[in-house]
């Protein structure tokens, strides 16, 4: 274990997975994968197509049950917990194809997530309580408006999400995730389909979010854009054919021969040091 790794995982990991194995029929989608995400950090999960990244996220978020292995969220074993129970314990996620509520406005997405976290009883009480028609509490408005501000969504707050372009939809998903005050957010290929400007904007949002000390939130980033992930993350996990082939700090990952061979000699994309032009390494990694 390098000293840097010791630094990163010195605290109790906010999200911990051990020996995750998923079999679909005869196919091993994941074999004995370990993963841990330190508090207030950004971890990257990379790998070629079909490496099992999205399957891993599905297991971590509770949408898929692993054949073997266990998942802990802030020290609590959540392997048997449903997706919604994990969400309430502080695990949020976004999707590669945004899973938005097309009938709701941007603001309503955030309000719902906020209420699920802060006033979950309103989900049931409001049904028979006409007070639900009263204006929302000022605390709630403050939190939601603050998030809209953080994500530059104030101008579209009242727009139904069905009318919004993909880049904005991704931000809405991030906003919905943040509104539930999570300890960790799983981001499934948040940059795919975005142009360079939208990618940069989203990456800078991620950096801002993690730096906000009062949030105390970590990100697990699954992304094809290896260059962007290496630039952004504190720690990288590399999957290939369902197995973890490397886990290290970005600098070491760039040098790792196993990673290089998994990406079929795509040295350029791994070596480039692009911080700002996040879109530059896009798609080069595809074998």
């Amino acid at each position, binding site marked *: 274990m390098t000293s840097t790794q010791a630094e990163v995982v010195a605290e109790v990991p906010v999200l911990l997975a051990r020996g995750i194995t998923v079999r679909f029929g005869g196919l091993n989608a994941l074999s004995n994968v370990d993963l841990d995400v330190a508090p207030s950090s950004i971890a990257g999960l990379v790998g070629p197509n079909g490496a099992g990244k999205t399957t891993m996220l599905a297991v971590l978020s509770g949408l898929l049950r692993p054949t073997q292995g266990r998942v802990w969220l802030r020290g609590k074993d959540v392997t048997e917990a449903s997706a919604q129970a994990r969400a309430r314990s502080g695990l949020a996620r976004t*999707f590669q194809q945004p899973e938005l509520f097309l009938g*709701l*406005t941007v603001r309503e997405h955030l309000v719902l997530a906020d*209420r699920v976290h802060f006033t979950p009883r309103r989900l049931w009480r409001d049904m028979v309580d006409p007070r639900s028609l009263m204006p929302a509490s000022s605390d709630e408005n403050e939190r939601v408006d603050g998030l809209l501000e953080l*994500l530059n969504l104030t101008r*579209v707050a*009242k727009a139904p999400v*069905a*009318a919004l372009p993909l880049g904005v939809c991704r931000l809405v998903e991030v906003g919905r995730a943040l509104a539930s005050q999570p300890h960790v957010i799983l981001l499934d290929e948040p940059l795919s389909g975005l142009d360079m400007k939208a990618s940069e904007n989203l990456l800078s949002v991620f950096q801002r979010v993690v730096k906000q000390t009062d949030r105390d939130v970590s990100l697990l980033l699954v992304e094809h854009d290896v260059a962007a992930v290496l630039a952004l993350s504190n720690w990288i996990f590399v999957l290939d054919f369902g197995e973890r082939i490397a886990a290290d700090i970005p600098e070491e990952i760039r040098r790792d021969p196993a990673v290089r061979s998994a990406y079929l000699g795509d040295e350029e994309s791994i070596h480039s040091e692009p911080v700002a032009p996040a879109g530059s390494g896009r798609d080069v990694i595809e074998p």
Partner: protein
Amino acid sequence: MLEFVIAGLVLGGIYAIASAGLVITYTASGILNFAFGAMAFFIARFYYFLHTQQSWGIAPAAIVAIGLAGPLMGVFLYAVLFRHLRFTSPLIKVVATVGLLVAIPALATIIFGSGAILSAPGLAPEPVHVYQFLGVPVTLDQIIVYICVVATVVVGAVVLRYTEVGLKVRAMVDSPAMTDLSGTNPDAVSAGVWAVSVFFAGLTGVLAAPIIGLDATNFTLLIAAAFAAVVAAKLRSLPIAVGVGLLMGIATSLAQRYLPPSSQWTGEIIDAIPFIVIAVVLLYNLVRRGRVGEIERIGGALDRAITPQGESRLAGSTSSALETGSLSLVSKYAGPLVLIIAAAALPLIVQGYWVGLMAQAFAYAVIFLSWTLVTGEGGMLWLCQITFAGIGAITAAELATTHGWPVLAAVLAGGVIAMVIGLVVGLLSIRLGDLYVALVTLTFGLLVENLVFTLPRFVNSGLGLTLNRPSFATSDRAYAYLCLAAFVIVALFILNYRRSTSGLAMNAVRWSDAGARTTGVSVVQMKVTVAALGALVAGIGGGLLAVAQTSIVPNEFDTFLGVVWLAVLVTIGIRSTAAALVAGISFVMLPALAQAYLPSWTGNVPALLFGLGAISAAKYPEGVLAEQSRRFRGQLLRLADRQRAPFVVDTLSPDPAPIDNVVGGDHGAPEAAVVVGKVP
């Protein structure tokens, strides 16, 4: 024993062909055809018309009815209906086929006349020749069924799996757009699928007619049994569907042989066999925690990209739970308020017999509100609300008349019992997906109708149960207002629900299952709650209806009639409380007016119209009334917004500058998704 197995294989064979037809249609088109039984009935009735009434020979009659009329009907229905359903949600597809389920028998009655035909000939020449097989007599009709089963399975499996046509069909299901781009005409393939589907329906109908007679309700029952096989096959597996169909037939035959014929339970158990199969399958799936693979999103990425979003859901306008401007408040509630005032004035205007009908109309409106909750808000298609109404009515009558409860308390208790049952049915079915809810509730309705509602205690030699009105509302007029008050209370509850956090969460669940779950909202809890509330409302409405009539004959709560109710409500508007009121009044008043002032043959026209109305849900998912009021509101908004710029979404970046003024239409403004750049 062998004799009974062989006999059972006939009924089982018919179940098998029906379920094979359903599975093949579902696999090839993504549509679960609830109208399969109605189509089977129509073609069988046409065959009877040609063969028996017009004295055609068996071969020409069968060729024209099954081989020609059936496929033509399929192509026609595809051209006018199913073609427009390609990108819609499973719910809208089901509603459209439910509309056909109502419209086709009504059309058959108008064309061929009413009157059940008890004995209809099959495909074997009469007198039917009897062969001996292992010492067991087997009729030619039975042999024809066996041959058809084998042919269906072999041809269906071989064509779908190994031929180029099958490849095209499967490609089409995956992505019509890509199929189109690769040079295959998706319309031709789909039209072919529907031609084959109705051919199967016709074959099932003609084969079944000698066994069950020519009666639309019997056909729906037959198809309910086929549904059990389809549920067991998880909608897709042809061998399992056929196998379970055959086994159910054998089980039925063996039950007839070995259960004591004198016991009343024998008949009930036989009727319950399909439901037992469904219950076992559901429990098995619950234990395995498997979510069954129904096609949530037809088509591939390209298909979704070119489909306007927001139009694909039956229940899915913007909730606007949090943002409602003053103008939209007025325009939103002015219409319903005027309607309620007009409805309140009606019992004062009309006289005598018609006042009593108004009381019934308002009770129906309460029952219809249960769908406003379950389908309008919950996005689920429950086909047994009439059963809950019946359960509410029977419980109310038992408690009030036999046990001396105050009648309103008894009505409320009836609602609570219905709610508990709704909770159980919901817990069993909702986890598996929307199509299963529709399948299971329909079968559940048929089961209760045949098992519970026929109990001698409730039927009471055809007299039914009696109920007295509460002492303060004995007159028709006073009772009508009592029902209207109940309607207003439930409607206010629904309005509050819609605008509350619960409604927000339900709306979220309806749009994205995964999104809701990972936000911490339990899909099953939200849906089961709304379903139980719907059952409560239906139960109370049923009780109110029973009290309005002061008597209740349980077989009035016929599941098929419940489907007509749903068709009425979908036609007028599934999401609007005002629509439920209009639907209640239309459902009672239109047939009464037709009966009073129009010739008798028009009796089936309302059912036909309501069926066609439900089919139009494909085009106007929110119903006629909602569509009109939306247009009216749109005009109001346009008048108000004349000075302001039209809305524009013109950037992929969330930078504030380029986004001008984003205003959503009711459907989340599908057009906005493709508008890039400033609109002049």
